[in-house]
């Protein structure tokens, strides 16, 4: 969500902190602020609002939090609208229980046109395209209060609006021309002739234009689950939908509507031409929460004074149902209507602690050591033990995708229903195909002499039961070593699998579940370097002739140091030849370079062996 500093100051005239401080403070109290930037002379913040704080999808909700944090007054920008009881009543019908509250009003004889500059700028900074004054004002109010607003051109819609679960219209076109087939029961605003609006997206059929002179403006709060379900069915996301899917406060509607009416009359002229329509069948029932005043200190682990707790909750708009002049240890509280996220004592505790400051909790006092029962499953010990043994024997550990492209046994394979990756839809039944794919990738990078292993789950289905087993798969190019190592580790032989594709590479797969497990095993904590290959390994040979025979290991170390670590992958002596006629020794080196290009590798190679 975007937040313009100057607009926020309209609610908080005494706000006087630097943008960077505001960014950090907003984040610390739970409104993660990615960054701020200056655009068109305005400081604009970019925030991620928590899913349980629908009230903060508008400036007003954020301003309320900041007023508490900085202990500054919150200004009410709304002005009570005068309603004339002699005006006509709007003929609006509501036939569904998915509507929590609707307030609507008709304004006539207005002059709509292109928005004034300040409004266009505001709308653009929120990533929306300005349309005209009336439409832009509805969006402005939505951004300020976090509650979506809609305006109907009554010349097209008539005044006879019906809120209903649609059952008779099969097509709908949105304000921007997007067409939907309405094959589900969608919450809509219709009239008897036309589908007019979704709950979260206005329709083309009653769109406000520059020529509009009469409008019904309405602000509504719906059953959020219904809106969420509708937007999912239609695969449509709108700013209005994002807000209506949250728990919004029906009691905030009058304030938002009054503000909107004031702005319309100021910017478009016109006059109120109906009585206020207010459909509010079931008023919000506020919870009564008992708070133990010691609880914030008990939960946070630091002392939070009771005076601060009372003061903080008062500023948040909580109502105290017990005497707070001489509070007992437990007090009874009703949270403000805007705060749908506060339903129990722990929520109040979080409020107190976040305004007291998470940063006041010490960071240097970890949990004290305590001997509690070891509940480590024995198979975890076995897995750790096997990994250590295999690494000691020179095998590298890899991890592969548990979702794979092909099944081995179609009768027992488990298939996912909605994997976004349409190729990887099966849960693997064996690790061998996955390790073969690993070899495919190694081949692409020209990595040779691979010996590696994976320990992971394999899956199958027996009737309605889903079976998961821990499996170990080892692969090596050294047949005898693989067999010898496996026998060494498990004291028994296992079947070896020959790959059709990699004839010179063998695999062995062992299900671990039925093997004996160690009673306890504490693994080694080793740190080794893993490399992200960005290009193929480049392998080059070099011959050097020496007057006397040298230890191969000494030579390998010597030339490793000369070449340096940055590009050297591996160095091997592949041949040593003693020329008895000259009594000289010729050593053939095979050097592999990584993450570099051919030219650089060749230059480094020639230079390192003195061949340039």
């Amino acid at each position, binding site marked *: 969500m975007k937040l313009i500093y100057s607009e926020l100051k309209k609610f908080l005239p005494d706000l006087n902190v630097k943008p960077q401080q505001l960014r950090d403070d907003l984040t610390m109290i739970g409104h993660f602020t990615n960054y701020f930037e200056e655009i068109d002379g305005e400081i604009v913040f970019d925030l991620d609002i928590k899913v349980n704080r629908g009230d903060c999808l508008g400036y007003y909700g954020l301003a309320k939090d900041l007023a508490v944090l900085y202990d500054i007054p919150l200004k009410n920008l709304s002005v009570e609208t005068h309603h004339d009881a002699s005006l006509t009543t709007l003929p609006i019908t509501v036939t569904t229980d998915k509507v929590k509250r609707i307030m609507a009003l008709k304004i006539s004889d207005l002059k709509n046109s292109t928005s004034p500059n300040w409004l266009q700028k505001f709308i653009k900074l929120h990533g929306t395209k300005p349309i005209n004054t009336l439409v832009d004002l509805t969006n402005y109010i939505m951004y300020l209060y976090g509650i979506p607003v809609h305006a109907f051109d009554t010349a097209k819609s008539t005044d006879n609006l019906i809120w209903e679960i649609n059952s008779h219209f099969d097509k709908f076109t949105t304000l921007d021309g997007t067409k939907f087939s309405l094959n589900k029961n969608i919450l809509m605003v219709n009239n008897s002739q036309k589908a007019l609006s979704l709950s979260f997206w206005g329709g083309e059929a009653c769109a406000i234009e520059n020529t509009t002179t009469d409008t019904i403006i309405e602000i509504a709060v719906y059953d959020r689950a219904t809106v969420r379900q509708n937007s999912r069915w239609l695969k449509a996301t709108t700013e209005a939908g994002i807000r209506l899917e949250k728990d919004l406060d029906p009691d905030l509607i009058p304030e938002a509507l009054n503000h909107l009416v004031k702005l319309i009359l100021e910017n478009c002229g016109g006059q109120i031409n109906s009585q206020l329509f207010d459909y509010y069948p079931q008023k919000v029932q506020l919870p009564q929460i008992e708070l133990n005043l010691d609880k914030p200190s008990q939960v946070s682990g630091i002392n939070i004074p009771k005076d601060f707790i009372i003061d903080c909750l008062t500023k948040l708009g909580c109502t105290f149902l017990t005497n707070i002049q001489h509070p007992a240890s437990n007090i009874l509280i009703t949270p403000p209507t805007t705060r749908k996220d506060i339903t129990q004592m722990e929520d109040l505790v979080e409020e107190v602690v976040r305004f007291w400051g998470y940063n006041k909790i010490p960071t240097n006092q*970890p949990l004290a050591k305590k001997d*509690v*029962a070891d509940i480590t499953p024995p198979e975890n010990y076995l897995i750790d033990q096997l990994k250590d043994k295999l690494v000691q024997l020179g095998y590298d550990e890899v991890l592969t995708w548990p979702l794979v492209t092909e099944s081995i046994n179609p009768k027992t394979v488990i298939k996912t*229903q909605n994997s*976004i990756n349409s190729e990887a839809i099966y849960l693997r039944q064996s690790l061998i195909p996955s390790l073969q794919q690993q070899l495919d990738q190694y081949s692409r990078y020209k990595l040779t002499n691979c010996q590696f292993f994976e320990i992971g789950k394999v899956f199958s289905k027996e009737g309605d039961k889903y079976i998961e087993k821990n499996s170990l798969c080892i692969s090596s190019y050294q047949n005898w070593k693989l067999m010898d190592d496996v026998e060494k580790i498990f004291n028994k032989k296992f079947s070896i699998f020959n790959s059709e594709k990699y004839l010179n590479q063998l695999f062995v797969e062992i299900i671990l579940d039925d093997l004996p497990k160690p009673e306890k095993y504490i693994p080694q904590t080793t740190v080794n*370097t893993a490399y992200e290959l960005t290009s193929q390994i480049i392998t080059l040979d070099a011959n050097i002739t020496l007057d006397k025979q040298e230890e191969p290991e000494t030579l390998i170390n010597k030339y490793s140091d000369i070449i340096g670590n940055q590009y050297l992958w591996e160095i*091997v002596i592949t041949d040593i030849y003693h020329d008895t006629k000259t009594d000289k020794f010729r050593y053939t080196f095979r050097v592999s370079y990584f993450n570099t290009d051919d030219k650089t590798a060749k230059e480094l190679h020639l230079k390192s062996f003195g061949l340039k």
Partner: protein
Amino acid sequence: MDQNLEKIKLEYLSKINSVKTATELESLRIEISGRNGKINQLFSEIKNVPPENRKQFGADLNQLKTELEKKLLSKSKNVSKEKIRNSTLDIRNSTFSLKKVGHLHPITQTERQLNEVFRKLGFSVYSSPEIVTDEFNFERLNVPQDHPARDMQDSIYIKEPEYLLRTQTSTIESYLLAQKAKELPIRAAFAGATFRNEKVNRSNHFVFHQYQAVVVDKNITMKDLIGTMDLMFKTLYGDDVVVRYRCKYYPEVEPGVGPDMQCFNCHGKGCPLCKYAGWIEMGGSGMIHPKVLQAAGIDPNIWSGFAFGMGLDRWTMAQKNIKDIRTLMGGNLAYKPNEK
């Protein structure tokens, strides 16, 4: 076995048997398994074998290779050892390299580093299934149907709506609390693969790893949580690491705590890596929600606890300077053969 291969096998087994010294054996090893040896020569001839016989021929050849190499190995233990430098042997074809070293996957390394921290504090290392029920993945974690938090986790279903692949390691917490509710206090840590319906790109994967730690005891506080997390950060990233702990929402905890680490790339100034925030979100945590405890049959008036989870992939990438999450489960993650 192919008749020709059988013949070769018998011939070489006989030769290995008659060898007397290490130098003779090394000569024979090179003749059989050397770079230009018999085995590699036979492998290079596979392309000439008719396609329908190729698989069988490959299997036979592997068997031949295995048997001869095993025989060479066992023979090497019985012949006298001589150092090459003292021999007059023509050492053509001898291959020398430093000892091949094995490596743990970076994810395992990070997991073990974290496990070590927690073991010292008395934690067990727990685990649970990857195919889970909606009840354990959502309901018991205070995420009922139609809760907006479900949008944060686009699930991969096995059988909608009941069975799915776990979307978070908090699911392991649900199993843990259910299974050990009568064995309190609990201290457990666990790592695991988690699954969400995300498109695979540099930053996101539909399979990723999380690490989580859970404590249920009497009088557990946010101070315990933050102090323990800070210890973990310092263990992994050193004493100079800068971490802030802020208010964050997760349905399974209340109050919620979000640890952010100062960006290691820009040191807080803001850069593309941290999306100009100067901080990197490192996971989520908080005091276990009373509804989560109640769902497991644990009385929240007696017991309290904390839980925190983090993206193990991102932690590992930050530690190992790996830029692309796909690398962690792909063939471009590799280890130098001789480097520990």
